[in-house]
């Protein structure tokens, strides 16, 4: 039996065209659903894309060690402290690994920078070693970065934090306190402009102090949130990771409570928080898609009821049940696909509009286009099949008898 695709298509076009407003409104339901899903995914991919760009800019010789099963909270500069299984002894143990060029621990210090009167919110205080500057590519606009000989009472702060604390970017020599501990600013970082990066720190709003000082403030054996690694070259990275892995496994008594992430995997936002937020957003967006689908089913049921006589007649002149099913299914598929394409376009318009208020741009990927297409197809299929089967099951005699 032939599918009669072109016939069904022209048929569906005629039927949809003769009820233009109804068709438009039904498609709109799908459009809104697909648009919201597209927006969420495009912005989410934008976040991932930023980190991806940083990684590829870093010649592929970067790896990070993170304590497993913890989120290090790197969403839009918000810092979340979590128990960690990495400690300074781990950092020390791996620092001498052959092939490793630099390594830098990141220790989050609870508390925030303040000048007594001004206490900006959502800032981070991290303790680290001087090599962080080269791994994370931090540049200093004024003064200098921490080094081996600088005083422990000194700190380097981000440009935005400098503005918030002192009202100027030129704050070298000024002092601020963290947990009653006084620090002198010896350097201000160049604007980093990437609140989301593989270090998990918004450097524009962070104060960076010596690891030794951090240990003093947090107590010895204080956990590290992350250790950044930089191999001598991209080729060495695999070997370095292997060595460190065995090393750490030994010192953790075979308990694999850490993860070493390298390459493109770093680009994936690994925080559970981020994934949860994106998952919830997609779920909420999907609800509007569901509502759109119900709209399609509703209108298709109306359409089937309206065309009962036509169905009876088509059966009388030789249409099989499959013909009738396809006729109505294709109609709902056209509506959902048209709505889906419109929704995809609208979704990006919304995403770009929103991104003007954010620090990252939405990303075009085949993945998102595919999701939009598949979602709208599935919706058209799922919500179109019942009305179509209902149409095909109609008794031709009863249908032909029905007057309108």
């Amino acid at each position, binding site marked *: *039996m*032939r599918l*009669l695709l*072109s*016939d069904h298509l*022209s048929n569906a076009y*005629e*039927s949809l065209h*003769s009820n233009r407003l109804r068709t438009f409104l039904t498609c709109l339901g799908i459009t809104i659903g697909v648009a919201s899903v597209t927006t969420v995914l495009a912005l989410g991919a934008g976040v991932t894309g930023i980190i991806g760009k940083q990684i590829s800019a870093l010649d592929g010789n970067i790896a990070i060690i993170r304590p497993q099963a913890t989120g290090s909270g790197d969403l839009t500069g918000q810092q979340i402290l979590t128990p960690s299984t990495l400690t300074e002894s781990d950092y020390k143990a791996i620092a001498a690994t052959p092939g490793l060029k630099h390594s830098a621990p990141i220790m989050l210090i609870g508390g925030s920078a303040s000048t007594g009167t001004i206490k900006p919110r959502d800032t981070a205080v991290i303790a680290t070693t001087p090599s962080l500057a080269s791994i994370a590519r931090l540049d200093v606009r004024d003064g200098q970065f921490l080094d081996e000989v600088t005083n422990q009472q000194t700190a380097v702060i981000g440009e935005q934090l400098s503005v918030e604390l002192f009202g100027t970017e030129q704050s070298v020599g000024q002092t601020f306190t963290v947990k009653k501990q006084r620090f002198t600013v010896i350097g201000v970082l160049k604007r980093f402009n990437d609140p989301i990066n593989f270090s998990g720190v918004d450097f524009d709003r962070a104060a960076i102090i010596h690891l030794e000082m951090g240990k003093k403030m947090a107590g010895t054996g204080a956990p590290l949130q992350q250790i950044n690694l930089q191999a001598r070259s991209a080729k060495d990275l695999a070997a370095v990771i292997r060595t460190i892995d065995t090393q750490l496994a030994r010192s953790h008594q075979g308990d694999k409570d850490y993860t070493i992430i390298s390459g493109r995997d770093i680009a994936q936002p690994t925080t559970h928080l981020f994934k949860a937020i994106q998952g919830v957003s997609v779920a909420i967006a999907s609800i509007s898609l569901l509502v759109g689908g119900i709209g399609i089913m509703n209108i298709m049921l109306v359409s089937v009821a309206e065309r009962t*006589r*036509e169905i*009876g*007649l*088509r*059966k*009388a*002149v*030789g*249409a*099989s*049940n*499959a*013909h009738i099913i396809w006729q109505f299914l294709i109609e709902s598929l056209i509506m959902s696909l048209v709505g889906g394409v419109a929704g995809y376009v609208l979704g990006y318009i919304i995403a770009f509009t929103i991104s003007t208020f954010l620090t990252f741009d939405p990303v075009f990927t085949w993945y998102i286009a595919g999701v939009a297409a598949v979602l709208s197809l599935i919706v058209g299929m799922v919500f179109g099949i019942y009305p179509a089967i209902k149409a095909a099951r109609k008794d*031709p*005699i009863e249908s*032909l008898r029905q*007057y309108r």
Partner: protein
Amino acid sequence: MAKKHIKPVVIKLKGLKKRYGIGNAEHYALDGVNLVIEKGEFIAIMGPSGCGKTTLLNVLGLLDRPTDGDYLLDGKAVEELSSAHHARIRSEQIGFVFQNFNLIPRISVIENVALPLTYRGMRKMKRLKEASRVLKNFHLQEREYYYPSQLSGGQSQRVAIARALVNNPSIILADEPTGNLDSRSSHIVMEELSDLHRRGNTIVMVTHNPKLTTYASRVIHMLDGKIASDTKIPVTAESTTEKIPLGKIPKEKKS
């Protein structure tokens, strides 16, 4: 096909029964109908309301399945076949004409006529050509791209007949084809059916109107689901008349 008898049998019914309801509400709309329809017959089925005429027509047209009995169409038993198979038989061997025309209002006349060909998988161009050819025979060529709502009742029914005829069916089933028409349009439509009959088509028509039996070659009266009488009408002289273009008949034959 080579074994062409004098008159090949198109339909053979044996003990055909159709039951509605169960138990106390049991009711036989068809109660043992035996009938043989030969090629080229024009059968008028008469009878009071509820005697089973329409049920019989629906069973003949494979729109309804009999409860019991045998139905052979062109020598093949059809009641055991799947519904998809029935659909194919409807598209290839049966043409329907309804009381209320049942044209699809959204599509033009020519597309309505071409509709049965769609389900035989014919390409659109070929379909429309074929439909146009049939419409030409009915002198409705200039109405091809009208919509059903723009046609008179008589014209609508002629379009419906054209549609029934477009796939060269073995049999045409007409359920009160003139039931919704005034007497003038009725006349035109009956002339059309009668003309088809003269050209060798097999027609089964259900009607309430005794006058229309004059067009038929055989009249069957039904009562309570059974055939009460079955009369063959001898060929009249009228059947030799030449076909006259339909549009002009009412003026010439009026009153």
